[in-house]
């Protein structure tokens, strides 16, 4: 894409790799990831910070990438859904669990859920159902009725505890 007036160069790390692109100051991080870095796994469902489909991790913490400007992400570490699976294609336990429990249907909201769940399970490897419901209440899904999403989080937690029993601690604040 040709440079537009007012664009600046932005360098950041995405999924562990240094990436550079150009953006006007008004460009959101979500649009930057999608349109400049071609990482279209991060979806835009509302662009005003309610639906959670665009959730990514900024320095390990979940943020809505539609509520951040690309210029603000300079020098930061971003994790997106594209970085979850291992290089050899092995799915992350959270991805595996969502598929196994049928925790997705149309799949549009799924990347946002996956990133929110990754953060949750880092914080608390064994969340209660109430914890799960409160934590994920900022991600909207129209297809699943959430039942299987909650099941998928339990499933993922169990997989991760088995794989890495010492991971994660701390409260859910």
């Amino acid at each position, binding site marked *: 894409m040709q440079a537009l007036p*007012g664009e600046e160069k932005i360098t950041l790390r995405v999924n562990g790799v240094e990436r550079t692109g150009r953006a*006007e*100051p*008004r460009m*959101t991080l979500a*649009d930057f990831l999608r349109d400049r870095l071609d990482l279209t796994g991060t979806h835009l469902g509302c*662009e*005003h*910070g309610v639906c*959670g489909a665009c*959730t990514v991790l*900024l320095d390990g*913490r*979940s*943020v*809505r990438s*539609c*509520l*951040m*400007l690309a*210029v*603000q992400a300079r020098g930061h570490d971003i994790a997106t859904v594209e970085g979850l699976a291992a290089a050899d294609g092995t799915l992350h336990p959270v991805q595996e669990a969502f598929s196994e429990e049928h925790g997705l249907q149309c799949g549009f909201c799924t990347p946002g859920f996956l990133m*929110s769940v990754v*953060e949750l399970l880092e914080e608390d490897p064994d969340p209660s159902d109430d*914890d799960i419901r*409160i*934590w994920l*209440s*900022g*991600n909207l899904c129209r297809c699943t009725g959430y039942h299987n999403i909650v099941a998928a989080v339990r499933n993922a937690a169990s997989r991760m505890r088995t794989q890495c029993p010492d991971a994660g601690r*701390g*409260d*859910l*604040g």
Partner: protein
Amino acid sequence: MKPPPFDYRAPETLAEAVALVAEFGEDGKLLAGGQSLIPVLALRLASPRVLIDLNGVAELEYERLEGDRLVIGAMSRQRSVRKLPGLARRCAAIAEGIDLIGHVAIRNRGTVGGSVAHADPAAEWPALLLVLDGEIDVAGPRGTRTVAAPAFFESFFTTVLAPDEIVTEVRVTIPGGRSGSTFLELARRHGDFAIAGAVAAVTLSERDGTIADARVGLIGVAPTAVRATSTEEALRGARPTGAAIADAAALVGGHIDPASDIHGSADYRRQAARVLTRRALTRATERAAGSLEGSAGLAG
């Protein structure tokens, strides 16, 4: 839904930020956590000429408990404050209030200073500041000043801040002695802005168990967060009975002036404020009586 064009400045020190607000005045808009401002831009409800981004001003990002004071740099994230060790034990109302701010991704990014300066009448921090003797430090080209919370909030989204002033720090005082507190809200869904909310802090007399001090703040029911001082006065010195609390809660009506919207009429909000006040005072009193404040069960 894309923001309109603007110029962007990213100061790295408070001094640089002050110089920029002095330079741009009304044309400049400060960007803190952005969780309210960026949607406003995306919806093109505002078109600032210059956005002055405070996220690079590291000196404004701190939070600490100093004795009975909670001291928060303006750019401290809600989540960082919430993760202060012992916060829920020291003052449940603050922990619960923060947990009621949107969702975790919002709290990861949203700042305390941004919330205070934005002055949404349904937001939690203004009420916490009113109830907990809050102070707000402000910096600008004319120097710095400290404003007590009651003098800070003027109306819907309006404070005493001049266009060239920046909130730098907020402080609240955590009640000591046999105290308990809580923050309750009624919202259509978890994380939504409250139809009404009540924060209560109660201190019981060590001597006879009567109410030594009661504080009640309400949100969503007036142009700013308000304190229900007649409720508080009615309880001071009273025995903490259900009847006393209910009678006192019934007095909140004199302090509120709710507007109607699609989520609740003014009448409904009046009822909600009364119910929430009674429930919040009851819970805060129980916590004070049982020294429940800050027990492990309240964390999370």
